[in-house]
């Protein structure tokens, strides 16, 4: 009968309206930025290496500066070396922790 011909278009409209609303809501919520994997293994290796090297370098550099300032021989440089190595390891450990927690999205310095 005639009344059976009418509901489908309205139902469909309802569906399309709901879909449009969802899209808009998603847009406003700002669906995460999807891209976080830094080229996987290659990127990870470089990243951790850079992390280690730069932290170690900062430790050594600080030690060297303090040595020159306090005229304390090579001692603070050596201390700086070990502290830098420790800090580097700690950072690498932290990065790996965030990676275990959220695979592919560990982006902490």
């Amino acid at each position, binding site marked *: 009968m005639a009344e059976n011909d009418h509901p489908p278009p309205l139902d469909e409209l309802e569906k399309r309206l709901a879909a449009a609303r969802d899209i808009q809501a998603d847009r406003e919520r700002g669906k995460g*930025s999807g891209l976080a994997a*830094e*080229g996987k293994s290659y990127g990870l290796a470089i990243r951790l290496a*850079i*992390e280690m090297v*730069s*932290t170690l*370098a900062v430790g050594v550099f600080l030690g060297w500066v303090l040595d020159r300032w306090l005229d304390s021989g090579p001692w603070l440089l050596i201390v700086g070396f070990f502290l*830098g190595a420790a800090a580097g390891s700690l950072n690498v450990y932290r990065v790996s922790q965030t990676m275990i927690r959220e695979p592919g999205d560990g982006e*902490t310095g």
Partner: protein
Amino acid sequence: MSTEAHSPLSQFEVHTLVPIQIGSVDASFTNAAVFMVAAAASVLLFLSLGMAKRAMVPGRWQSLVELSYEFIANLVRDNVGKEGRRFFPFVFALFMFILFCNAIALVPYTFTVTSHIIVTFAFAAVVFVLVTLVGLFKHGLHFFSLFLPKGVPIALAPLLVPIEIISYLARPVSLALRLFANLTAGHTMLKVFGGFVVMLGLAGVAPLLVIVVLYGLETLIAFLQAYVFTILTCIYLNDALHLH
């Protein structure tokens, strides 16, 4: 180091084009400066031409502009939160500038601005200073609690505080080093394999294939490194604002 014309590193040399001296400062216009200006101009052109029509229903170009805007806006919102809005223009400028420097560098015979440690370090230093100032303004001396992780026995403090300070100071170094190393390594490799192609003549097909693959990888890295630099900036800003 080597100044031979065909050394893979010769592409990184800076040549003075117009010598300019302001007081004791050497402000010469170099080939590096050419590409910095080109990058900044391209960003401005890309954005203003894309938004010229300001259409309600965006065309392809305008969509691209809006996409980049929302990409960074989401990045800032997700990683820094509401207070991050103030820094959005800075983060956006940073991302676009680095991205366009990297992208322009993909064109053969161009100069790679971001392959210079002084440039990447300057960016990292600006981020570092900004983050530190933001933290100090927001939290005053309490900001230094960043250096003593919560729930750590006080006895370990003399050991942990220096380690945390070194980590904090290492941030700009690793930030700068990462961008510099990635771009320098990529472009050097491209040049080396390019040299192979020329040397081997017909047999140069194999290294040519390597170049094609490398080139694709470089394109990815150009974007990825700009992204990583930007997201780390956001994360540092978040640390300074919220002192985890």
